[in-house]
């Protein structure tokens, strides 16, 4: 291709290839690489609890590493990997039929509904959902008593809590959604004609599934495994809430080294070895995935022969059997449908229990007292304040609707004014109500809950904005300006995904006091500014790390599938890079950024481990407060708070969906890019 003036012009504008990723590079250097480097350094020190930070560096050694290989600790490593491998496998086995059913067996409209039903549970607090599993599993609980009454189990009731089995059940539950989504996306992209061709060529259902569908779904399975296996290995909450002594996992053990045992060197060594173990098992998994097709291709002549014979036999049979067998085949979709419904019920059980138990008359969330009452709702809310807020909200919305009606007939008003007026009045109501009267504080009678919910939203929102901006930019850079830097950058992103949260948490918590000494950055993080004083900005940093890595991957995957020719054409036609980006690239990645943003928001809203260590008294979020409450008795008002958070989040999502639909993006498109696939 001959160089046009435009391309030469374009080249002159180009900075280094990683220019767009520069904000992310600086961010990761400041808040990931440097703090983590300190923690890695800690692993070579020795414990010294007389120091302010309890590590002594006077004689460095690898003692902590050898301690991990001690049989006692290593057992927990094996146990964790076993739980994670089994849970990931179960997630594939349970999720695949659901994804298959949603992708191939239902009309478009139902696809969106099934997907929404899969996603919605992850917008209730992760922690309260996990705690809710204690309700049906309690040996003295209603379910257990019923089972005893039926004579199905012994007098001791269900003996699952505080065992690895409880962790196994809840961990499958907690991550199933993250498996179904990428599976669905991968399956949904398969050209139906490929499957039809396979069948026309005589392959049966089973042969088509294993020969065509499954290989094509491969990338989705890989994405799903990455999204579930890695966080499972570092999971802290599930094991802590349900596991007891027997179901202990590495995540919880690492956390206890840093806080309870004050043995930072051992904790760091464990974390580093855990990262190695995760990478190793992923490596083994990928090698296995390469080997299986190899083996099967070697065996293919024999298999082909067998298939041909079976097909011949089937044809032979088909000649003798009447067409009535057609109805028999229709059983499969029904079975899949029933399975899907069962899985959805499974996903919603804890949420229904959270709602139910928020009406518990007793003093503990997990123990149903036999009577229902609204006293905890009453205890939490200040009725008259609440009414005032609702009235103000309704009034502003009504005004918006009325104005819209009035404007409808007139031609001299631009169209967008009338179409946005209701949305604007909603936002106005939110601002007037929220920032002027501090309703989130006053409608709650109980200390802190309103603040915690508000803090959760501000923290998650800020972190999501950061994640979408820096993640989106580096995603574009990765897909469009690859170079030697890509390897390093991708390795960093992958490390961020694999590093256990507790390690990030400790690294950041010890990093923030140090950051004062760095000019400019120090001022921002120590003086505190505007309404975001009191540690919220620290939460933005902490929560944005994982979220931005996720956005980066999603945006990159999205752009990798699209030819660069569009941008080139724009450039050739004389558009400066900025304009080409704004008018071509940005619309291309918009849906990926929205999807990444939604996922980030859900993840940040649930973030408990990092937030617990770095939050200050003024920035306690809902999961942090709830994690504190799990240390003793969880009162039913936490269920009320969780239910409320759920409702608010869902309405925010609905609101977003409305805006997006106005922007012309279809709901299924958003769902399709939700996890990026590849």
């Amino acid at each position, binding site marked *: 291709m001959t160089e046009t003036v435009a391309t030469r012009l374009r080249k002159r504008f180009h900075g280094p290839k990683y220019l767009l990723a520069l904000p992310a590079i600086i961010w990761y250097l400041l808040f990931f690489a440097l703090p983590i480097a300190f923690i890695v350094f800690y692993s070579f020190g020795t414990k010294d*609890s*007389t120091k*302010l930070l*309890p590590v002594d560096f006077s004689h460095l050694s690898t003692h902590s590493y050898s301690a991990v290989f001690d049989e*006692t*600790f290593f*057992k*927990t490593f094996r*146990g964790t990997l076993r739980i994670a491998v089994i849970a990931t496998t179960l997630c594939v086995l349970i999720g695949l039929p659901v994804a298959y059913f949603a992708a191939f067996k239902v009309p478009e409209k139902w696809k969106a509904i099934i997907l929404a039903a899969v996603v919605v549970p992850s917008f209730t607090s992760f922690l309260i959902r996990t705690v809710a599993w*204690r309700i049906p599993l*309690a*040996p*003295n*609980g209603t379910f*257990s008593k019923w089972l005893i009454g039926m004579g199905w189990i012994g007098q001791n*009731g269900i003996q699952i*809590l*505080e065992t*690895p089995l409880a962790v196994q059940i809840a961990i499958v539950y907690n991550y199933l959604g993250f498996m179904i989504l990428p599976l669905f996306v991968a399956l949904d992209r398969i050209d139906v004609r490929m499957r039809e061709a396979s069948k026309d060529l005589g392959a049966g259902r089973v042969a088509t599934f294993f020969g065509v569908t499954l290989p094509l779904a491969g990338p989705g399975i890989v994405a799903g495994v990455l999204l579930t296996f890695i966080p499972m290995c570092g999971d802290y909450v599930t094991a802590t809430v349900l596991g*007891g*002594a*027997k*179901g*202990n996992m590495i995540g919880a*053990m690492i956390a*206890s*080294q*840093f*806080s*309870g*045992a*004050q*043995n930072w060197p051992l904790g760091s060594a464990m974390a580093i070895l855990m990262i190695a173990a995760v990478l190793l098992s992923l490596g083994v998994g990928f090698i296995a995935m390469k080997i299986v097709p190899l083996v099967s291709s070697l065996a293919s002549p024999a298999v082909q022969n067998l298939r041909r014979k079976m097909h011949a036999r089937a044809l032979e049979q088909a000649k003798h059997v009447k067409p009535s067998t057609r109805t028999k085949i229709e059983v499969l979709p029904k079975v899949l449908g029933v399975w899907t419904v069962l899985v959805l019920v499974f996903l919603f059980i804890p949420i229904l229990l959270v709602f139910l138990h928020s009406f518990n008359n*007793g*003093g*503990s969330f*997990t*123990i*149903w*007292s036999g009577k229902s009452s609204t006293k905890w709702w009453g205890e939490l809310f200040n009725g008259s304040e609440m009414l005032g807020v609702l009235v103000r909200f309704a009034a502003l919305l009504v005004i918006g609707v009325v104005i819209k009606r009035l404007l409808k007939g007139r031609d001299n008003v631009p169209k967008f004014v009338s179409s946005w007026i209701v949305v604007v009045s909603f936002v106005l109501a939110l601002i007037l109500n929220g920032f002027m009267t501090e309703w989130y504080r006053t409608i709650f*009678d*109980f*200390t*802190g809950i309103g603040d915690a919910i508000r803090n959760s939203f501000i923290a998650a929102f800020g972190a999501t904005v950061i994640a979408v901006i820096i993640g989106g930019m580096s995603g574009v850079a990765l897909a469009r300006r690859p170079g030697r830097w890509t390897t390093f950058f991708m390795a960093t992103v992958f490390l961020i995904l694999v590093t256990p949260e507790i390690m990030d948490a400790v690294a950041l*918590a010890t990093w*923030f*006091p140090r950051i004062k000494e760095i000019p400019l950055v120090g001022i921002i993080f120590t003086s505190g500014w505007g309404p975001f004083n*009191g540690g919220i900005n620290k939460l933005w940093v902490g929560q944005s790390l994982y979220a931005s890595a996720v956005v980066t991957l999603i945006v990159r995957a999205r752009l990798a599938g699209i030819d660069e020719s569009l941008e080139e054409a724009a450039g050739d036609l004389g558009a400066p890079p900025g304009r080409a980006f704004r008018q071509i690239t940005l619309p291309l990645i918009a849906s990926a950024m929205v999807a990444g943003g939604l996922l980030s928001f859900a993840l940040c809203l649930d973030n408990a481990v990092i937030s617990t*260590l770095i939050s*200050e*008294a*003024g920035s306690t979020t809902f999961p*942090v*407060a709830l994690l*504190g*409450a799990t*240390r*003793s*008795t*969880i009162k039913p008002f936490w269920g009320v708070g969780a239910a409320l958070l759920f409702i608010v989040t869902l309405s925010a999502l609905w609101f977003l969906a409305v805006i997006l639909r106005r922007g012309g993006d279809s709901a299924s498109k958003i769902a399709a890019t939700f996890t990026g696939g590849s």
Partner: protein
Amino acid sequence: MATENSKQNPKQLNMLAPDSFREKLSRRAFLQGGTALAGFALIAAACGSSSSDGGATTDTAAAGSTDGLASGDWSRVINTASGELAMYTWGDYNDPELVGALAASTLSVTMKVDYYASNEDLITKLATSGGTSGFDIVVPTGPYISQMVEKGLLQKLDKSLIPNMVNVDPLYLGQAWDTTNDYSVCKNWGTTGFFYDTTKISKELTTWQDFIDTCMGEASGQCSVIDAAPNYCGMYFWANGIDWNTEDAASIDAAEKFLVDEFAQHIKAFDSYPSTKLAEGAYSIAMAWNGDARQAYVRIADAGGTPENWKWVLGAPDTELWMDNYCIPVGAPNPEAAHAWINWDLIPEISIRDLQYHGYHTGMKNMSTLIGEIAPDLEKGDMIFFGDDQVKTMHTQVITPALDRLIDILNKSKAKAGG
């Protein structure tokens, strides 16, 4: 408490609660959450607290003597402050009304409460944040205070702002970790024992040795222990007649061998607050602090169980005496409010209210008189107050270099207990 029974002065009883006062303030109403506000308003009024300007005004209880209220022995000073007050404390450790609406209306401060699970958690939080944690009040256990002072995590209290400290029994002041109470004042104290289901465990249990034997026998896989190294190892030391503050390497080695290799595999959970899970039916025997075990009775009844089937046993032959203390961390944004709150919580009526909620002795002087007057219906008092002969068997923890070994033992036991 028996120690106080002997010292009790019958005259005080009259001074404490004259009839006029009692008529105005129905005791039961005062104790029940709903009308507590009204009850408190009375006291506040009686004490002459009328400050509403939010400044650091000090109203003394002098007015009390004029309308015949108890005075003299009790100080009921209320200092008000303003702004927010953030407390970092143990789970469920104050009456929610006190740290909520009442603090707001009486002291004009908005409270935030967060919880930690161990002293180490608290220290990690304060140490890593370098004085920017934003907390105004923390509640460490006694022996950890000297360490925290050394690390520069705590600031000195301004005792002139805590005049109600005179209400604390001298027995609970001037402890080894802070002989002059420059940094701390007793919030409450308690002890350790265990709690078991008599329908599942047939033997009558009385000592730590019984507890260990049952956990390794009849209740194997159904028992929980407190998730704190000194308590967990203490159980072994007490059962074997060894001082739980021992630094003797041989004793600690023996403890490690027994706890890690033989005992750990029988443990179902390391749980410092087993009361809710006991009610769920998760354990049939649990090592517990007295206040939490007392709460378990309520939870079990809540869950439709029969509390009568459960038995509390104070650890024997020896056990622990721990004391949690109000302290103010370095860098506290609102020390004025912190002092005001600590001072307020030392008013007998407020203190007893907290006591009724958490079930721990709050260290007020003449406790039995106070209980008789303010909370005569208090149930399971024997789980809060202990006789002289019992207190004699309780020992305070001392932080020694051996603590690292004990933490190590707990750590290894946790790994070993895993399935």
